């Protein structure tokens, strides 16, 4: 396959349009073929694809497009708006009770990621909404599922209620409700067993649990890699349980995630969260509008901003930046910067959120180990050396000492020195740049020559912050 994802493919098909001054009907036809194929390859349900291409085509063929000064841009906008339209305009929040206990029920097929997501959600709501969660183990069928939830609870220091595998889930949930009251929990997340949506007796069990629990939220966990069947699964769960929202899991894979597109269109279930990694803090609020931008390759700048502000003290950041701009940047700052980036999570993950970066990084993998090496080298320096980078760059014996102290080679140390210098220079340049001209293309080319990839991200972040 020539194009690896929906965003590439759409970009490719749209590029043909963007390059022209005027659109012919043939152009639109050709473009819609590409859009149709790419959406199908992305696992978007074929009915949704049909409706989508039809709407876009109608809008593009209308006079609207011909009147415009830049028809290509208008088509991009129509496609983008329509994608947004299908996925729902706004991020749908969870219903949380201000007083009393909020009850959430996790449902889905086997292997969708319910147990992990239950843990993630508990962690997320404790952190962001200050709730005291109780995880309830209702999967008595899959071997060791209870243990899995217990382990996750222990890792996060979150209460877990379980009664082994010999009580019925209906009994367990009843007891769990009582327990939550005496234990002072104001959030219950029930982890049910995975089941097929066509398994009547198992679906009945869910209905029973729902009747007892009376949850505010019934969340369908859906694997982002699901194909055409996503719609059947979702409508079936929805019909029987009246699902209030969906969580799209494993979205950190290379799946094109078309299930997200079809889900809402066909079933009207809003997607509320997405799982973006195996670690228990890797859950994010799902923003349908941003997802549309991401599909179109416009990046997900807003998500990035959220992520960064959540994890980084802005004053710290500004202080660092000023230092950089003034050229007084040293190894202590460098170290601080690495730590900040680490707190934001996987480098690769962040890069993908930056417009244009997904493409630039293709094939070039961000090596997270590099940051560990960098840290080791800096920590092998004396305090004086860290403060005054010139000491290191002037003395070869110091460089040798740092190299052997950190277990790296002298050339690695040289590269570190080089990247510090280049970064300082780059930042100086950026400081003098006109913000209005800072589009992603020029910023990218300015940064492309830096030796370690990590700097690309930093420079870019900084820039986003300022303006």
């Amino acid at each position, binding site marked *: *396959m020539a194009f690896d994802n929906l965003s590439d493919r759409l970009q490719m098909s749209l590029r043909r349009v963007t390059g022209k001054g005027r659109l012919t009907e043939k152009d639109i036809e050709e473009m819609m073929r590409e859009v149709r*194929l790419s959406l*199908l*390859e*992305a*696992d978007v349900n*074929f009915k949704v694809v049909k409706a989508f291409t039809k709407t876009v085509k109608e809008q593009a063929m209308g006079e609207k497009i011909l009147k415009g000064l830049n028809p290509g841009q208008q088509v991009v906008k129509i496609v983008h708006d329509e994608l947004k339209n299908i996925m729902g305009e706004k991020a749908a929040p969870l219903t949380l009770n201000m007083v009393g206990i909020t009850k959430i029920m996790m449902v889905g*097929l*086997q*292997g*969708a*990621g319910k*147990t*992990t997501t239950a843990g993630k959600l508990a962690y997320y709501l404790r952190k962001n909404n200050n709730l005291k969660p109780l995880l309830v183990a209702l999967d008595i*069928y*899959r*071997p*060791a*599922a209870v*243990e*899995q*939830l*217990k*382990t*996750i609870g222990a*890792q996060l220091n979150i209460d877990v209620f379980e009664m082994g595998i010999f009580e019925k889930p209906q009994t367990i949930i009843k007891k769990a409700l009582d327990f939550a009251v005496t234990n002072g929990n104001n959030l219950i997340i029930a982890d049910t067993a995975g089941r*097929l*949506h*066509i398994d009547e007796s198992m679906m009945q069990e869910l209905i029973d649990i729902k009747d007892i629990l009376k949850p505010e939220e019934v969340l369908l966990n859906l*694997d982002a*890699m*699901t*194909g*055409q*069947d*996503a719609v*059947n*699964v979702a409508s*079936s769960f929805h019909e029987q349980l009246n699902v209030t929202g969906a969580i799209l899991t*494993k979205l*950190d*894979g*290379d*799946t*094109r995630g*078309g*299930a997200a597109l079809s889900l809402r269109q066909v079933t009207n279930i809003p997607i509320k969260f997405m799982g973006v990694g*195996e670690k228990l803090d890797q859950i994010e609020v799902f923003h349908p509008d941003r997802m549309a931008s991401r599909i179109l390759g416009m990046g997900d700048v807003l998500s990035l901003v959220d992520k960064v502000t959540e994890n980084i003290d802005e004053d710290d950041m500004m202080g660092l930046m000023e230092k950089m701009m003034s050229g007084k940047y040293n190894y202590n700052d460098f170290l601080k910067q690495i730590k900040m980036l680490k707190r934001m999570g996987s480098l690769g993950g962040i890069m993908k959120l930056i417009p244009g970066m997904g493409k630039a990084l293709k094939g070039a*993998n961000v090596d*997270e180990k590099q940051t560990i090496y960098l840290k080791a080298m800096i920590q092998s320096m004396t305090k004086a050396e860290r403060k005054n980078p010139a000491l290191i760059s002037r003395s070869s014996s110091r460089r040798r000492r740092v190299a052997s102290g950190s277990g790296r080679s002298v050339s690695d140390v040289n590269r570190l020195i080089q990247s510090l210098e280049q970064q300082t220079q780059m930042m100086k340049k950026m400081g003098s740049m006109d913000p209005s001209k800072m589009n992603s293309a020029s910023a990218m080319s300015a940064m492309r020559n830096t030796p370690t990839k990590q700097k690309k991200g930093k420079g870019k972040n900084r820039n986003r912050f300022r303006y």
Partner: protein
Amino acid sequence: MGFFDKLFKSKEKRINAQKYKLGMSKTRSGVFNNLKILLESSTEITDVLFDELEELFIMADIGVDTVIKFVNHLRDTVEMKELSSPEDLKEIIIEEMFKLYVKDEIVSSNLDIKNDRLNIILFVGVNGAGKTTTIGKVANEYILKGKKVLMVAGDTFRAGAISQLKIWSKRVKADFFSKEEGSDPSSVMFDAIKYAENNDIDIILCDTAGRLQNKVNLMRELGKINKVIARECVGAPHETLLVVDATTGQNGLSQAKIFNEVTNISGVVLTKLDGTAKGGIVLAIKDELDIPIKYVGLGEKIDDLEHFDIEEYIYGMFSGIF
């Protein structure tokens, strides 16, 4: 007369196919009943009909490229044989789909298990595909055949994964080897092979942690596991099975491609075919990468695992249209 009759004339096959039929009943009624209606309501073979066919195959999650190729091939065949009635298309569709999978070769669903050596089978796949459950079922099959089977808990990452496999080992009475959670999976494999050599084991079934194929470091870890196994036992792993969830869409192809680069996949296990999912992506995997399907998972019970049989698979999918 027809190919279809030839295909299913043996009674035994028919009975075997019942299980597929049962598992895939929704598959048929969902997609291929439409096919039946479509074929019966059309009076001639037109481009519109081919377009509709294309959509139906895409609905079955058969990869887009494979579908386009397949439909083009159908067009050529119809032209060559000068067919005009949509009824004739039925047989051609089944025949061509069979050929697409078999490609004039002998495709076996048996595993490369030999009596005079230690056999090592490695199970890989993305998170939640059903690796651990499949191992339990495969172990059961070989234990019933009188083999001494060792299950190795190579998923040292996911919470509860080790105990999950351990419970399976007790259920099927297999030997079990594990180290503590968080150990390097390669070292687990290394020690497990030593254990197997000292304990007269015939078959080692190695579980691994689920990993998304775009996670470079995790794929490297898998490469290392593979390397360690190959170093400690000549010719091993004798089978590397990629476990694919039947609900998986086009991403299944990407999984097969990338896992195959790292570990040399010898076969696919298609799990959860008892739902409404069509699992058609396996046809694309066979078509594009020539990786055969070895097993089909049809439920949660210990014996809900069948050797893959293309004839039964096609029968399961298509019997509704006749």
